[in-house]
């Protein structure tokens, strides 16, 4: 029997919300990959976006505002055989959680971050999020925004993510495909998902996006994949250059590199049994007794033990 990747819960997003597209694309991606739901975890933050794990029939950890990445880090590092996906809002990942977003890049842990980029703090009723550009006044704002926005692509690039892409919530096919590519990539991945918030963001609407979006993969010479050290600099700079485009909005993979080891690989260089027997899979007792015997103990901690002179 095929696994049903949607739970039966009623989805309580606003009618027309871009999150429906993300939910559809993500479940389709999981289905396409026939992913084992028991070995998959969706870790989310707090926000409208944060509710997504409850709607998906794989393990779901709905964490704290901004902390999905560190929770996911513990999950992945203690059991690297799990597929770990993070879903978070733009406030969640780039506001309160920005420090963790950067740290994940530095580690290149094999975690996929899906950034629900709606320009607002949805669940708290529409305040400006860190991706809302300066001078914009959405309907929920009392005055125009006086903060500049962060570009998720350049932040991800400068933090060391090895897979950096953008997609659009309402283009379910494109988004699904991008998610599949991210899951297939080995290393820290970020997808900036442009997500209309029909209730609070009356500027960055479907119409707005649909007029401006174009696909990188349709550019003739677009090859974002870094295959050798030599290519890195130019492809990195080109990705940044593309990320700076504002009038027309490119979606697709901006940058992907496969040369870097993942954090898990680096750990296993230090602890050779790590991937087979990660923290979650080690036996730590034998019928309630510690696996370390007294003899073993004395050997392990010999430099802390002194035998008294007779």
């Amino acid at each position, binding site marked *: 029997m095929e696994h049903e990747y949607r739970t039966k819960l009623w989805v309580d997003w606003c009618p027309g919300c871009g999150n429906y597209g993300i939910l559809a694309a993500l479940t389709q991606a999981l289905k396409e990959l026939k992913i084992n739901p028991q070995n998959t975890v969706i870790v989310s933050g707090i926000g409208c976006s944060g509710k997504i794990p*409850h709607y998906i029939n794989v393990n779901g950890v709905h964490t704290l505002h901004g*902390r999905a990445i560190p*929770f996911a880090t513990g999950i992945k590092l203690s059991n690297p055989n799990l597929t770990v996906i993070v879903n978070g809002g733009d406030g969640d990942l780039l506001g309160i959680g920005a420090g963790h977003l950067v*740290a994940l890049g530095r580690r290149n842990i094999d975690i996929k971050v899906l950034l629900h980029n709606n320009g607002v703090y949805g669940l708290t009723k529409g305040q400006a999020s860190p991706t809302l550009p300066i001078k914009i006044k959405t309907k929920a704002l009392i005055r125009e925004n006086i903060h500049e926005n962060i570009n998720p692509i350049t932040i991800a690039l400068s933090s060391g993510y090895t897979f950096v892409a953008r997609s659009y919530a309402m283009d379910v096919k494109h988004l699904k495909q991008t998610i599949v590519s991210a899951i297939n990539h080995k290393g820290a991945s970020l997808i900036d998902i442009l997500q209309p918030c029909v209730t609070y963001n009356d500027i960055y609407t479907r119409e707005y996006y649909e007029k401006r979006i174009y696909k990188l993969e349709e550019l003739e010479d677009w090859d974002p994949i870094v295959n050798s050290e030599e290519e890195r600099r130019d492809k990195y700079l080109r990705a940044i250059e593309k990320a700076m485009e504002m009038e027309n909005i490119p979606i697709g993979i901006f940058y992907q590199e496969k040369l870097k080891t993942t954090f898990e690989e680096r750990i296993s260089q230090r602890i050779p049994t*790590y991937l087979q027997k990660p*923290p979650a899979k080690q036996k730590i007792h034998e019928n309630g007794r510690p696996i*370390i015997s007294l003899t073993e103990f004395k050997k392990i901690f010999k430099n802390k*033990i*002194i*035998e008294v002179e007779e």
Partner: protein
Amino acid sequence: MEETDEINIILGGPQGSGLETISQILTTAFVKLGYGVISDREYHSNIIGRHSYIHMKVSSEEEPLSLEYPVQIIASMDAETIFTHQNELSPDGILIYDTGVLKVKLEDVKSMEEEVKARLKNVTVEELVNSLNCKKLGINFKQILSNLTEEYNIPATQASRYISAIIVGAIAKILRINEKALTYALNIRFEGRELLVKTNMHVIKMIDKIVGEEYEIKLKKPKPRHKEYMVVSGNDIVGIAKIIGGVRYQSYYPITPAADESLFLESYERIIMENGDEIGICVLQTEDEIAAISSVIGASLTGARSSTTTSGPGFSLMVEALGWAGNNETPILITYYQRGAPSTGLPTRGGQADLLFTLSASHGEFPRIVLTSGDHIEAFYDTIEALNLAEKYQVPVIHLLDKFIANTIASIPIPNLSEINIDRGKVIYEGEDYKRFDLKNIISPRAYIGSKTISWYTGDEHNEEGHITEDPLTRTKMYEKRMNKMKLIETETPQRLKYTYLDEGRDYLLISWGSTKGVCIDALKTLKKVDGIHGSHLNIKMFSPFPSKEVSRIISEYEVNKVIMVENNYMSQAAMVISMHTGIIIENRILKYTGRPIYKDELTKAIRNILSGKNKREVLINGA
């Protein structure tokens, strides 16, 4: 000269100049010979240059439990030590000093804090030493070192590394520590670096020759009760316990005095056992403490025994996630080493002012265990018990220790591994309609993420499946399921984890918790021996859930004005917890908040003052 069964020593010098080497060599030699040793390291929040000292006690009778003044030996590496500790030497004690600093005047000592200087006379070291009423052992460090550089062809710039050997030599001579023990100790310290062992031994022997035979303190022959001892800091022993107890994931953000525990674990990240099996411990340095605790929770969800370790400022950042763990019935262990607070406070000093905070940290109500330990041996067993309790009851456990335990190095017997159980609680590995928060029992079986189940978790109130609910009745049931754990834990926890009680008489009762345990026991003994009064001692170990009945019963056996709290804080926080739970208000309080440990002598005096009715609140201030 009479033989003594214990001796107290101060080793002082600038931070970064080798004090720890001296202490390690001496401690190893003492323990090798069968003595018991305890030593506290006091240092500034500074890397190189500020005054630092080691305060130790060596006993031929037992593993000592506390420190005291005055001391019988002060070994000073510099002028500042002499100025700082001038009043701490016993009249029959010996001051070891460098004759090269005799001309230094107080005002020349730049590294010394102005506030301290302001209280001292602006004299030269020479004037000061002359005025001291004790034996003085002046050594010309420079000369020794220049002899050394000549003989061993050591560059002059590196000579200062051998100052430690001068001090070791002088103390070894005074205490007549034999060469064999010293060689053993040097070999341990310099692990296979032959030349260093040889050179150091050479210096020690030079000193042995130089120092006159009249410098002697006769230590009784030791009576060791065990064949082997461990010499460990609190950080070490907790790290060892985590390895034995099955911690396989630890994440942390560096902070004094907790970080060394993680570094210890990291150095054991790969353990290859006899049978070829390997233990691998993933130790992650995170970007902050929020990430540390969050990742530990994540690891726990997958079934790894996981813990983090921190101090006050770090714990303050962890409290939001602590609530998530509580609400999601996720077992985690937080090893919490208190230090001088509030805020960054006294980062390298001690204190016990975070108890109340741990009891109610994080918004809202959820079950938690707060467990304290009174010494290294307790800390070992308690760490493992804490891991068990966390999993058995699916709650966060805060193991509340402090800087005095963390940095104190003590000789302890090898733990009894056969006493140790590992209890992972109720776990199931598969199940079609698995419900993580099944309301059938207070403790619902855990399924690890990655087993043959699917679970959901949320910080929001949730239903049995772990999905969000705002239904008032489900809310009430789920809330009560969680909170009922407190009663359950209280009922099931064995006494040994709740408190230790030394019942030696009804003249008075000392109540303490955590690291003040040892000094209370020692003060009790002294008052019995010297004053002939027979008191008892209650050390409370578990504060959440609080053993109200037992504590209440014990206290009620004493006149309330004979009950005395001993705490390293201002508010007498344990007294507040006691009154909160039992209604008993204990007004006699011996408190200290200088950041230094409580010493036996000042405690004994303060107990006398209280028992004589002179004072209800005694504030201690000894120690530099």
